[in-house]
């Protein structure tokens, strides 16, 4: 164990390299700025670090950190459902990285909510003081809180193997199926409810984005986001964490990328179809010829239909490079969609000068959160059996 720790430490802080590498310095600066912004936020209020106003009560921290963050953390439930429920055992080695990303993603979503709400210490109030069950936000809050717990439990076996707590680890592994099913139920509910939050504001969200189907759109696009993020992260991990991967992971990786590309392409085709149905149902074709309509087409054609096609081609030709680049487009597409719904097409009727543009502090804090996420992921995956099977538990799952 101690030997392993030494090895892990060595690879995390290579002794032959100075700590002051360009990457480390950049990370350090980001962390310092983040801490400074934290102090500013909690001594000067939201006004000190955000451009939020009465027309735009939700900004980047909700539009990106919460809306896009939750969607991009969907890899956890999609991968574990594919592996455990749909029986695609060949994706097994991808489950742990996906669960870890999901867990960290949700944890950071909750952390960034603590910055965004006015009185974060009251976040438990909706559960312990008064339950506002008529609110979709109540559903979101309940599901996110529960799902964060589920993700934590799903992640735990890796930590417990590392700590050598065999009994506890085995007990948790036994309930994998139950956790996976809870995870999918909770994800279905809150991924869709994030979209359903806007059902109450038909007069504020542009009619091309507003639809009674918006909960379905959010849920289906979260599957796209989950699959694409697994591909995207796999690519990055391969580049930077290769030495941590065991033979099984490396052997299964190409098949996983092609399989997920196929799946994502299929789901995206369905998503494009239901989006078109939504326009047809509300008969909003004429709006496509407006500036917002063109922007809508950029999102739907450029960031959904195009990657859908490219994924299909990539899967057919077994072209990993193409699939990996396509996953970048798909991920950007999900982010664009969430920003459109939450910020850009929200209050669409307001003149440009009244529209919201994020404060540097909001951008800084978002980058801070992303950096924390990447650093913790790297830290955990260098120490714990994430990309490899623990030798004591080989084939034991």
């Amino acid at each position, binding site marked *: 164990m101690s030997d392993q720790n030494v090895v892990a430490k060595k690879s995390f802080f290579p002794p032959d390299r100075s700590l002051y590498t360009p990457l480390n310095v950049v990370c350090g600066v980001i962390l310092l700025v983040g801490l400074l912004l934290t102090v500013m936020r909690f001594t000067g209020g939201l006004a000190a670090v955000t451009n939020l106003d009465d027309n735009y*009560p939700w900004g980047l921290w909700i539009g990106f950190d919460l809306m896009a963050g939750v969607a991009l953390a969907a890899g956890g439930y999609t991968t574990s459902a594919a592996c455990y*429920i749909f029986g695609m055992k060949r994706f097994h080695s991808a489950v742990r990285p996906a669960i870890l990303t999901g867990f960290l993603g949700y944890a950071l979503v909750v952390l960034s909510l603590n910055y965004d709400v*006015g009185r974060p210490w009251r976040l438990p109030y909706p559960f312990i003081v008064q339950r506002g*069950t008529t609110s979709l936000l109540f559903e979101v809050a309940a599901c996110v809180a529960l799902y964060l717990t589920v993700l934590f439990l799903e992640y735990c076996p890796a930590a417990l193997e590392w700590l050598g707590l065999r009994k506890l680890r085995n007990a948790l592994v036994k309930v994998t199926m139950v956790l996976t099913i809870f995870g999918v139920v909770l994800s279905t509910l809150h991924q869709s409810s994030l979209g359903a*939050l806007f059902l*109450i504001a038909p007069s504020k969200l542009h009619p091309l984005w507003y639809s009674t189907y918006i909960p379905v759109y959010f849920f289906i696009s979260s599957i796209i986001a989950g699959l694409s993020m697994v591909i995207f992260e796999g690519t990055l991990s391969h580049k930077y964490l290769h030495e941590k991967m065991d033979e099984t992971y490396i052997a299964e990786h190409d098949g996983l990328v092609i399989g997920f590309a196929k799946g994502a392409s299929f789901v995206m085709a369905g998503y494009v179809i239901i989006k078109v149905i939504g326009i047809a149902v509300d008969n909003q074709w004429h709006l496509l010829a407006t500036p917002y309509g063109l922007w809508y087409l950029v999102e739907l054609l450029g960031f959904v239909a195009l990657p859908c096609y490219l994924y299909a081609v990539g899967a057919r030709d077994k072209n990993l490079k193409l699939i990996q680049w396509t996953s970048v487009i798909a991920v950007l597409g999900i982010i664009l969609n969430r920003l459109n719904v939450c910020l850009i097409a929200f209050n669409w009727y307001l003149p440009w000068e009244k529209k919201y543009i994020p404060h540097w502090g909001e951008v800084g804090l978002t980058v801070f959160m992303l950096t924390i996420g990447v650093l913790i992921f790297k830290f955990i995956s260098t120490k714990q059996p994430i990309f490899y099977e623990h030798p004591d538990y080989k084939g034991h799952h």
Partner: protein
Amino acid sequence: MSVSRRRFLTWMGGASLGTAVGQKAYAASNKAFTGYPDSMGVLHDTTLCVGCRRCEEACNKVNDLPAPDVPFKDESVLNQERRTTAEAYTVVNKYADASQPAGVTFRKLQCNHCKEPACASACFVKAFKKTPEGAVVYDASVCVGCRYCMVACPFNIPAYEYEKVLDPKVMKCTMCYPRIKEGKLPGCVEACPVEALTFGKREDLIKIARERIFKYPEKYVDHIYGEYEMGGTNWLYITSTPFAQIGMREDLGTTSAPELTAGALGAVPIVVGLWPVLLTGIWAMTKRKEKISAVEKQQAVNEAVAKAEAEAGEKMAKAMEKAKKDQEAAVKKEVKKALEAAEKAKEEGADEKEEDV
């Protein structure tokens, strides 16, 4: 972890039951909520408003709001369109309208006190309440500060104290609820020098509005704004300038906020109930398929082994037979050889004997 499965299920059950039997369940039934009977409201007749900002001043005083940057006597602020803020629960805006005697129409803006408020429906901690008296009131002591009420409000009314650190609140008109309870008029209504604001029972206000429109059809737009907008509001407006021209949206529809979300909320218990069944079913089918394929594989292997064994046995038997035959042939051959040799020897022996003779 601290969450047992049992507790988890209790929560899930609680959450779904809450939505299933919560007060909004009637949204899906054939009962319609028509508002609290005898609830109070205010009728704003823009044709009477002169833009003096006395209402703003009274509101500021009654609600102990901070002194404004520009004094209330200064009417220059009317030149720009304003909205409600954390420092001003009500504002008066000026809109150009050439058909008016003064060439302008003034319109007062404040919380419309919806019959079924979006803010109350959206709040996940029930900080907003529609009172039977008609006012929509806010309880800052539970507010988390998520600002979903501001996103939900179709009239863009609630404002937030973004610069406060420890106790930021959502700020909006209360219809002077404490004053109404004391039997007083709302501050703005009391201060209005021209009776552009009329306080009374909502039902009576609608009658008054109808009567004015009926009496002066050439003067008024034939519409009472707030009678049905977003399910109806307790603050009502009549005007001689089209509503769209005085910054009031006419595309809000008549569906109340709770009805907009009822469908999505109603889906929650169904998902909670059916998803586990469906997913466990899929899992069971996959498991079974795997099992069957494993059995079939085993069977195929067994068969192949048996076949191979049988084939091998046959081959062996054949080989054995051949070997036996070969052996027999060899024996025969040897015997034959031996016999021949013996015969030969015999003949040779006879010859020798003959030679000897």
